[in-house]
């Protein structure tokens, strides 16, 4: 079971991961985009964290919804609607819950991914966060099918995400700003994929340690 406290903890850890990797994410975006991904994410998640006290005793769905609304109104750019939608759909998937089963977790992750796909229309191989989120959800699902628990499944998901993130390097971007670079986008790791990996990694860290 994933507790409400763990979810709150995860958001804190993710936000501080973003803060620590702000320059790194921005440099990744400088190479194939417009050098703002870390700045955007950090602005958004700082605001989101500031909202957490107002929902500290709410259910997980409400917490994620609040995060979603804050991200939507403070990140901007491509990642704002995408992360905003990820959290919005995730919140709907676990509405009113105080703790999450393995199955709830799968639905949360799947709903978030579906939201990103619908909003951004990217396909696998387009060199976006989808390339990281999608294999992660698949790995999580498979692990559950093999009767593993949430922590193990999340370990599989993060391992898959990490591998997938590296695989964005040789890809040629077909969505987002990086797509304008054509072949010149090859050889660089996708910034949005990187922040998505950090999101999953933070979640795992919390599940393992709290």
């Amino acid at each position: 079971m994933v507790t409400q406290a763990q979810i709150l903890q995860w958001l804190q850890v993710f936000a501080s991961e973003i803060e620590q990797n702000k320059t790194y994410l921005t440099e990744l975006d400088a190479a194939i985009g417009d050098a703002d991904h870390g700045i955007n994410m950090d602005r958004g998640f700082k605001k989101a964290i500031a909202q957490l006290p107002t929902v500290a005793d709410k259910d997980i769905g409400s917490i994620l919804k609040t995060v979603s609304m804050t991200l939507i109104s403070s990140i901007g750019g491509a990642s704002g609607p995408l992360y905003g939608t990820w959290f919005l759909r995730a919140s709907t998937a676990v509405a009113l819950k105080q703790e999450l089963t393995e199955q709830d977790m799968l639905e949360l992750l799947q709903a978030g991914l579906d939201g990103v796909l619908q909003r951004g229309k990217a396909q696998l191989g387009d060199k976006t966060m989808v390339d990281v989120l999608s294999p992660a959800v698949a790995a999580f699902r498979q692990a559950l099918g093999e009767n593993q628990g949430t922590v193990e499944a999340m370990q599989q998901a993060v391992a898959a995400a990490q591998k997938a993130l590296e695989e964005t390097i040789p890809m040629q971007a077909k969505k987002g700003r990086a797509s304008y670079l054509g072949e010149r986008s090859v050889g660089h790791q996708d910034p949005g994929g990187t922040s998505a990996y950090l999101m999953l990694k933070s979640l795992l860290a919390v599940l393992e340690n709290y």
Partner: protein
Amino acid sequence: MKKLINKPEDFVRESLEGMAVAHSDLIKVNFNPAFVYRTDAPVQGKVAIISGGGSGHEPMHAGFVGRGMLDAACPGEVFTSPTPDQMLEAAKQVDGGAGILYIVKNYSGDVMNFEMATELARAEDIRVLNILIDDDVAVKDSLYTQGRRGVGTTVLAEKICGAAAEDGYDLLQIANLCRRVNLHGRSMGIALTSCTTPAKGTPIFELGDRDIELGIGIHGEPGRKRISFKSVNEITEILTRSLIEDTAYTRTVREWDEDKGEWADVELIDPPFVKGDRLLAFVNGMGGTPVSELYLVYRKLAQICQQQGLQIVRNLIGSYITSLEMQGCSITLLKLDDEMLRLWDAPVKTPTWRW
């Protein structure tokens, strides 16, 4: 980084505060969420035109708010598209009962945020349509990219549609007009230097002393390719030929379908220019280029157009859609018909233009 700023995170807000006190006769600025709107909004019975995008492209868009042009502009962080709540609140503020057109530049961020805003507005029964500007021929295809970016034609579309709204056109007429302007406008730019966003504090890309970036985007996104520095005549020739020789461009865009109440995919085709076309020629500076140099671009552009049998009937020369202090320029050619010409000439009163 040497800039006339205080703290990087206050830059956009303080610039808007400056605009607000400087132009209190023309515009008002709302903060949280940030948008700039006409002092006389809402104008009852008039379609309202709203645009927006990342900051750093000034005077676009906030400098275009006023009679005969935009009803509101939504400025994002520097080079980062604004958020749906800005667009929604702006819509509520300027809605005069005749509906709202969102003019959206085709960048994944802008498109997604304006789509969310459209959905939110529709959910609150505000009548909104959205038209995409995607005129940057530096982006060749739409299959393997996000599609062409919205650049110089945006400025022209905002003027023309703003005049139409003032003239009493209804929402569908204006949306159609805006789509037509976009289909007949083509742009391409080059950068001589990079630019530095306040938040990053260092140049967003590196450009050698003898290199220029051909087909630069307005956010400093790298362009079509990097070429060695050339004379203005050669640069203008490359840009102009890219515009003139561009063939029909086909892509699918999402527009809101009012009848079905949902998004619809629409296929659009840009017709290429042909001999005899009457053009509006727009030579735009990227923010750090002296206007004297833009006249050298215009000089060569005019020569080429004349040779090609294209007739420039209006022009616009200056820094209107910029990338902070970047040096470089872009050229936009818009095929005018009588209606667009009349609307272009119609009166306007904004912080940037008064005629």
